[in-house]
């Protein structure tokens, strides 16, 4: 209804400016599963309910304890003794009436025993404080079903997240500092013509001072090339000379004093980046060389079909370059000159996108799919973001945990640095191992320096990791934590994990890969590949 859409537009205004209406739509079609409504779990869910995910389901077989209520905003003391999934659902649901909340009063192990396909319906599954065995079982089910899995844990002052997704494609990565796509080193025909339509030497001062810097650089570059055997300025000395060359072009008044020409100053300032050679970024080349790109089938995702089409474009119409992006930065110029220049790039971008479209059609035809399967709009968006495409692939939990495929190199190289967060990863693994054996966490019995934690670590095959100097401090610290879940650490993880889930759901911005550790003692963090 128009009324509800208008009020949602207002309510979500501040986040729509980040991920747009299409991103919001993806969120509203998502169904998130949370396993275990601990403080960490409910904090994560809060940051998904507030922005308006379609639905959530909490799976939790535990009953609410006094301790649970003490650190959890979404449990109250009259919930003590009730099922935790049900209790938390009520207070989370209350946050946003647009969201539909559900609960299952069951442990994940039971569900895995009786109905593993239960988990197939979710857009993403978030598992909090799962014992190792449950984690691995669930991980395997979700891996086969291609459902993204986010594992989270708060243990004392340490936060831990692990993303498990086979292949996650990102078209809109929204990079912070993207280089412009101006093609000054390889001006396309229409750009060349446009440059030629300017004659700087015969321009009146007003026009001269309001010519876009891109045109200024292009003009002077053309002159330079003709005087330097078609070699553009390459080293610092040559670039300095080029900058000076442009500076000499600034108009002078009757006394020989240079006028104030801001556009020329902009040109000089931008020489460095303007001379960057246009090339396909390595990350995109890698994608071109991947199996999914080269082997398009009727099962291929649109992402790979479009990528292959772009690759084909690069080798044909693009002459080794990606489709022109079509945007230019603002620059000192009068309106008409700027708009005309902008249109040159926009039109070229449209042309290139149309050519890519033809390749997409061919590819779709070749695998028996109708050309409408991928829209023009999607192809345009893909072309605009061609330099920024990203694909995230994580190893499975089975690979991480198996003694045969454990990432020893990453672990040993991190451990060279005594401040590395890697030590906490190993501690958490040892803690899980301890739990498997003793059915409790270290430090939760009366004596809280559990020496058996060290044994667990040893059992994990700790020696190859040369942990000896760190084990003492780390394990004592871990025992002190006694599986405490301080609210502030749970809340930090709550924000972090929720945003990663939003990235997975919306396919915008780039998720971490694959392990994130937060150390609240030093307020530092690390991302590890395990």
């Amino acid at each position, binding site marked *: 209804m128009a009324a509800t859409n208008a009020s949602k537009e207002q309510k979500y205004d501040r986040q729509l*400016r980040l991920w747009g209406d299409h991103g919001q739509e993806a969120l509203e079609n998502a169904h998130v599963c949370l396993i275990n409504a601990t403080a960490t779990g409910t904090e994560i869910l809060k940051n998904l309910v507030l922005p308006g995910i379609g639905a959530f389901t909490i799976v939790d077989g535990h009953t609410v304890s006094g301790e649970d209520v003490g650190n959890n905003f979404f449990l109250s003391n009259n919930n003590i003794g009730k099922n935790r999934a049900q209790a938390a659902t009520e207070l989370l649901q209350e946050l946003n009436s647009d969201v539909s909340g559900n609960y299952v009063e069951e442990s994940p192990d039971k569900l895995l025993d009786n109905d593993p396909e239960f988990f197939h319906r979710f857009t993403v599954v978030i598992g909090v404080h799962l014992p190792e065995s449950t984690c691995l079982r669930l991980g395997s089910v979700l891996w086969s079903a291609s459902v993204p899995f986010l594992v989270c844990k708060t243990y004392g002052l340490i936060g831990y997240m692990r993303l498990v997704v086979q292949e996650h494609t990102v078209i809109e990565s929204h*990079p912070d500092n993207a280089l412009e796509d101006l093609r000054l080193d390889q001006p396309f025909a229409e750009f060349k013509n446009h440059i030629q339509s300017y004659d700087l030497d015969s321009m009146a001062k007003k026009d001269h001072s309001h010519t876009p810097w891109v045109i200024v650089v292009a003009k002077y570059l053309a002159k330079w090339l003709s005087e330097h055997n078609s070699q553009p300025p390459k080293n610092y000395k040559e670039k300095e000379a080029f900058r000076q060359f442009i500076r000499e072009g600034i108009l002078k008044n009757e006394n020989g004093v240079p006028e104030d020409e801001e556009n020329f100053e902009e040109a000089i300032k931008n020489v460095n980046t303007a001379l960057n050679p246009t090339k396909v970024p390595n990350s995109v080349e890698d994608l071109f060389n991947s199996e999914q790109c080269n082997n398009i089938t009727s099962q291929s995702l649109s992402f790979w079909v479009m990528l292959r089409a772009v690759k084909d474009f690069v080798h044909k119409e693009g002459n080794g370059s990606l489709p022109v992006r079509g945007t230019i930065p603002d620059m000192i110029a009068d309106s008409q000159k700027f708009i005309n220049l902008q249109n040159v790039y926009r039109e070229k971008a449209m042309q290139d996108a149309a050519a890519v479209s033809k390749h997409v059609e061919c590819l779709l035809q070749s695998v028996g799919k109708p050309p409408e399967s991928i829209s023009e709009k999607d192809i345009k968006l893909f072309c605009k973001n061609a330099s920024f495409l990203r694909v995230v692939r994580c190893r499975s939990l089975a690979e991480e945990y198996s003694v045969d495929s454990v990432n020893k190199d990453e672990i040993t190289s991190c451990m060279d640095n005594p401040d590395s967060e890697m030590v906490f990863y190993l501690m958490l693994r040892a803690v899980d191992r301890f739990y498997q054996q003793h059915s409790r966490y270290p430090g939760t019995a009366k004596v809280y320096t559990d020496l058996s934690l060290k044994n667990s670590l040893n059992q994990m095959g700790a020696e190859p990791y040369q942990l000896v100097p760190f084990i003492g401090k780390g394990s004592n610290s871990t025992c002190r934590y006694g599986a405490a879940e301080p609210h*502030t650490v749970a809340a930090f993880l709550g924000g972090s994990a929720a945003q990663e889930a939003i990235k997975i759901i919306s396919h915008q*911005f780039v998720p971490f890969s694959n392990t994130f550790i937060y150390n609240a*003692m030093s307020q530092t963090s690390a991302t590890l590949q395990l």
Partner: protein
Amino acid sequence: MNLLLFSLFREKKRRRVVELTEKMVVDGGTCEWEGRWNHVKKFLERSGPFTHPDFEPSTESLQFMLETCKILVIGAGGLGCELLKDLALSSFRNIHVVDMDTIDVSNLNRQFLFRPKDIGRPKADVAADFINSRIPGCCVVPHFKKIQDLDETFYRQFHIIVCGLDSIVARRWMNGMLLSLLVYEDGVLDPGSIIPLIDGGTEGFKGNARVILPGMTACIDCTLELYPPQVNFPMCTIASMPRLPEHCIEYVRMLLWPKETPFGGRKSLGLIIIKFDMRLTRPLLTNGVVLDGDDPEHIQWVYQRSLERAAEFNITGVTYRLTQGVVKRIIPAVASTNAVIAAACATEVFKIASSAYISLNNYMVFNDVDGLYTYTFEAERKENCSACSQVPVDLHFSPSSKLQEVLDYLTESASLQMKSPAITASVEGKNKTLYLQSVASIEQRTRPNLSKTLKELGLTDRQELAVADVTTPQTMLFRLSFTS
């Protein structure tokens, strides 16, 4: 640094453990239940290898946190709501919150203590009510006020102050207030007068959290260059050479609105009375209704006119959303970033109050656009910081410089970034207001001074100028240093 901090807290604890506020009685019946503070106790009652060297585990710490420790939260918005929750669930019960705003529908995507029915009500009041009813025993006291409406007696009562503000001006004011509370005895700072300031800020997917010990560590003004001034579009672009849709919108906001005075007000007889000052973001209207970014009718008017302006120049891209964003200077915001930064700040509050761990030293930045990135470093104190160095800042000008140049320096220099400074000096034994903007009659009277030279104004070398501005609660002293 941390030893000093620890002893300061110990001292405060000893002095205040006997003061029990009326509402802070730990009541076995309604407020407590078995195991409630288990998660917190493990940090207060056990020692460990990473804890503070002077930390002594005890059961008294929890009592201090529950009954005595007084925390002030500034702002009850995106960060403020999170902070109140985090502190309440970390065993703090004695919390005050200050916020001058009322609730808007666009707050609801992240300010989770508010509901649609609360729209229009003061944030501080609604936030306090929610926390107090959700967290039994917690007593949040709201203040629906500007921070400037409260005085040093108010601020002095707190052990720690946490800021979740959305304005640099307000942060600097708070910074200045806490600096003004510092007591020096024979040139030595009394640690008991230090109130730690934890400051958090967010913008989209970026954020930062920092710990400031006024008088000891880098203050807000020491690192002012980290917040470069907001860039506004040049006037000639807006007036005659628009290229972007934003330029069209600014044209309507700054030039067309005052000229056409829609929604009431009289047009002056053919003359457009607009004062142009490039440093201000609003023209000074002498007649007509001021553009209200929260009024959809106003925004609709600006949007339509912006479309017309854009059409004139073949510019595409003007949308309603963009219009509102430009007029209100909207900063995108989402729940997750606020949750992360507030949590980091609250962790620091807990560490300082309990002395259980060494606190952040002293600045952390966070960005989750691409993976999750944090960077932690120690921001350094600036030797000649205009706020905390206690040494009057030198102003180097020639006696033939005009007062306008001094004014420009105060507003444009990256290290000062003042908004509308009022300058007074002692001339021939009398206190003379050289220039003041905020009162129209005085502005008119002192405006001619701007084009006079410092010599003409009777100012001498090495003399002090006192400058007042919204960025600081206290007058800032400068010393004129004449160059030849």
